[in-house]
C-alpha cells in the first residue's frame, strides 16, 4: 500500500499481553497456514470455515496465521501454505498477493475469482471509464441534486483496468475452482498437503459454480 509512511498503526502492531511461552513454542512448530481474500465476496473464506470439525482435526498440525479469522494483518512468520480467494482488481490486491507469494511456500487459488476472475471479471468487457460512470455518475441510486463524484483519494486503492486471475500476477501452485468450493474440497487439499501427499481432488468434488 502506498500509504505505509503515514501515521497509521495496524492492529497486530498494538501492544498486547504476551502469550504463554509454552503455547507460543508449540505454535511455532506447527505448519503455518494463511488465507486472504482479494477481489471476491469472502464466500470462499466461509467455505474455509465450513471445514468444521475437519479443521479441528488439523489444528494439532497447523496454525492459522494471517487470515480474516485471526485478524493478523501481515504474515508474521513464513507460511508453508497460503490460500488466496478473489481476483486482482486494484493495486492493494497486487500488493497483498505479492506479500503472500514472498511469504508462502505453496500458494493456492481458491474459487472462481482467484482462478479466472469470476463475477468481478464481468466488467472486463467494458472500459473502466464506463464502469465508473455506471457506478457513480449515471447510477440509478445517485442522490438527486448532488454533483456526482468518482471517489479518488490516496487512501483508496487504485482500480486496475481489467480484473485478472491471480496466476496472471504471481505464480500460483494449485487451483481449486468453485463458487465457492465446498469446505470438504478445501479440507481435502489442506489434508493432502499437511500429510505430505500429492493433491488429488476427486472429480466428484471439482465444481465450477
Amino acid at each position, binding site marked *: 500500500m502506498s500509504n505505509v509512511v503515514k501515521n497509521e498503526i495496524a492492529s497486530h502492531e498494538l501492544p498486547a499481553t504476551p502469550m504463554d511461552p509454552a503455547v507460543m513454542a508449540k505454535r511455532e512448530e506447527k505448519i503455518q497456514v494463511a488465507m486472504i481474500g482479494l477481489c471476491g465476496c469472502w464466500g470462499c473464506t466461509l467455505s474455509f470455515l465450513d471445514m468444521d470439525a475437519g479443521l479441528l482435526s488439523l489444528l494439532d498440525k497447523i496454525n492459522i496465521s494471517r487470515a480474516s479469522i485471526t485478524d493478523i494483518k501481515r504474515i508474521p512468520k513464513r507460511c508453508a501454505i497460503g490460500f488466496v480467494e478473489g481476483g486482482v482488481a486494484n493495486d492493494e490486491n497486487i500488493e497483498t498477493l505479492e506479500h503472500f507469494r514472498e511469504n508462502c511456500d505453496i500458494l493456492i487459488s481458491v474459487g*472462481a475469482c482467484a482462478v*479466472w476472475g469470476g*463475477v468481478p471479471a*464481468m466488467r472486463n*468487457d467494458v472500459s473502466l471509464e464506463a464502469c465508473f460512470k455506471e457506478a457513480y455518475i449515471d447510477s440509478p441510486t445517485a442522490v438527486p441534486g448532488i454533483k456526482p463524484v468518482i471517489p479518488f483519494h490516496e487512501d483508496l486503492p487504485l482500480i486496475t483496468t*481489467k480484473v485478472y*486471475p491471480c496466476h496472471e500476477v504471481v505464480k500460483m501452485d494449485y487451483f481449486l475452482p468453485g463458487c465457492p468450493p465446498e469446505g470438504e474440497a478445501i479440507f481435502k487439499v489442506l489434508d493432502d498437503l499437511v500429510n505430505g501427499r500429492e493433491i488429488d481432488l476427486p472429480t466428484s468434488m471439482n465444481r*465450477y*459454480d
Partner: protein
Amino acid sequence: MNTEITIDGKKIQAQIGKPLIDVASDNNIYIPSLCYMRGKPCLGTCRVCSVRVNGHVMASCTVPVYEGMDIEVETPDLVDMRKALVEFLFVEGNHNCPSCEKSGRCELQAVGYETGMMVARFPYRFPVRTRDHASKYIWLERDRCIFCQRCVEFIRDEETGQKIFSIDNRSTNASIEIDVELADKMSPKQVKRAADICPVGCIIDKDLGFNKPIGERKYEIKSIKERILKGKPNE
C-alpha cells in the same frame, strides 16, 4: 462384419464402419466429447474426443472402425491434450458458471470435470459478444457458444427443413445467429430440444432457468461419464 481392434493394448471385437467413439463407450472406455451425439451424423467440430489411431491424432467420432486399428486413448499426452482442448473452449468465450442457468446440466462443465480441468493454462480472452433476445422463446447467450454446430445441423424448421441457427463469419469473429421468423414458429417441444442439445448455456429457453436446486441438477445426480457409458445420456 466384425474385426479385431486394439484400444490401449486391449483387444476388442468391433463392427467395421461403426464410429470409434461408440465402440469405445460400448467397451466401457469413456472418451469425452461435446459435439457428438450417438445416432446422429458426426460433426467433428469440437475435437475433444481426439485419440491416436495408428500413430495419428484424430477425432474419434469422425473415424469409422476398420481392420488393424491400434488406438491409444489414455496415454498421458492425449489425456493432457484433450484437457487443453477443453481449456481452449473455456478461455475463448465467457464461461461464467456461477451465473449461468445451464450450470449443473452443462456438458462443457461436465466434460471439464471429467478431464480434470481446474484452471485454463491459456490467458482468458474475455471477448465482447452481444446477446440476441429478439426471438419469442429463445434467449441466445453468445458468450457461451462453443460453435459445436449441433443446433445448426439438428434443429430445423419442421415444415421446410430450413436451418434456424447458423454461424456467421469466421475465427474470432464467428457468431451464432438465429433466424427469428423461423424460431418464432418453433413448437415448445422443439424449443426444449434446442436448449437441451446445446452443450453449453447458449440456447436458453426463455421460460426456464435455475429450476433445479444445487445438488439435484443433471450431472450432479449422475456424471456425464456414467451416462455416456450406460448409453443413456439423458436419463
